[in-house]
């Protein structure tokens, strides 16, 4: 999944990779693609995770893990960092999700479980701010319920913000409330259509 997302990120983009699975995308971005990674705690030009002597507690990513800086890196405060998102300066952000709707609504911060402690971080800012929002998730949850849904039932993170969904079984493009299957892995469009509760169309979406 991470490899496919990395393949589809245009060269020269400014990109924010969300906490968890999306951070793996960085492993598949060759340096000659000149993608600049943004981390919302205040850095552009983030390098790989730090190891050994390179670990510096003052240099962490959004997941609070130690990272490194690449040549050309810049540090900035939080208001500037979120201006980069909200102001539409980031080209791509990649996030995980609990649910995505056919209209591109995103739910990824809270299950709504009354006992769960809610935490939102920068997810809502990324959802509304990045020019393009990609989601990486499994297509079905553990009990087989689809996570690509007609309408999100979990609390929303953002409205109509997701344009592509990368899953273990297929890649989807969301456009004008239509779901296009652009790639499948070990399954078929017909099979997906029967397992999902949303109509899907084969083939790349119209450009």
């Amino acid at each position, binding site marked *: 999944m991470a490899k496919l997302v990395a393949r589809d990120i245009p060269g020269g983009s400014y990109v924010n990779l969300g906490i968890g699975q999306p951070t793996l995308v960085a492993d598949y971005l060759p340096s000659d693609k000149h993608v600049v990674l943004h981390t919302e705690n205040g850095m552009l030009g983030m390098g790989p995770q730090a190891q050994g002597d390179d670990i510096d*507690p*003052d240099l962490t990513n959004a997941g609070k893990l130690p990272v490194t800086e690449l040549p050309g890196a810049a*540090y900035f405060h939080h208001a500037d*960092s979120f201006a980069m998102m909200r102001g539409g300066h980031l080209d791509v952000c990649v996030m995980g999700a609990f649910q995505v709707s056919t209209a591109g609504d995103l739910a990824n911060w809270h299950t709504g479980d009354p006992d769960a*402690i809610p935490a939102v971080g920068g*997810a809502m*800012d990324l959802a509304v701010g990045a020019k393009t929002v990609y989601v990486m998730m499994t297509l079905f949850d553990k009990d087989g319920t689809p996570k690509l849904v007609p309408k999100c039932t979990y609390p929303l993170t953002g409205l109509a913000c997701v344009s592509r969904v990368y899953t273990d079984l297929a890649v989807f493009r969301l456009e004008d409330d239509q779901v296009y299957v652009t790639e499948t892995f070990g399954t078929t469009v017909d099979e997906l259509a029967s397992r999902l509760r949303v109509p899907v169309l084969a083939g790349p979406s119209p450009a």
Partner: protein
Amino acid sequence: MIEVCGDAEAALRDLRDGATVLVGGFGEAGLPFGLLDGLLRCDAAGLTVVSNNAGNGHSGLAAVLATGRVRKIICSYPRQVDSWVFDRLYREGKIELELVPQGNLAERIRAAGAGIGGFYTPTGVGTPLAAGKEVRNIAGRDYILELPIHGDVALIRADTADEAGNLTYRKTARNFGPIMATAAKVTVAEVNRVVPAGAIDPENVVTPGIFVNRVVLAVGTAKAGSARSGSRETTR
């Protein structure tokens, strides 16, 4: 000139019951451990803490919460693998949580420091965190009204202070420091070193001294990071 305080208690001497305390840091990067230790030895109760997270482990902000003297926390990301102290207080109904999207949190602090009475933001529109907030459509897009967050005291971590109060920071430990410094009646910076005025190149000042009232040297913090950054010359 700024006041260089001998210890954290002196820097926090006018902290009163019910005060709003802005605490810099993102996770442990930029968290002013020495000032938070000083806060443990203050009597002020009924505090509102504004910080990105709600404490990790048992030190720093978590230790302050554990005293029971924090009534309310305004933050974006309280739940973490080691946020035991907050989790327990929250589940026992002993602390109030105002959850704010991270960028709105930052901008509300920035707005307070810049004298802005509020702002319309697209972040949060259509979500539960917009509940009860004014929605306004501007040029075809919906925005919600967010109000500034003022602090009585800001506790921030910086790298170097000069005697004019100018500050530099280290790497991503900068995070909320520069905006919190602007948004409180009294701003206290915990720093690795204090240098004479003129020793920081004016072009490299991140927080101008007008926003800083007191500094205290970082000492005796158990954090390897503080010790390490303290031993490193990064002034110029």
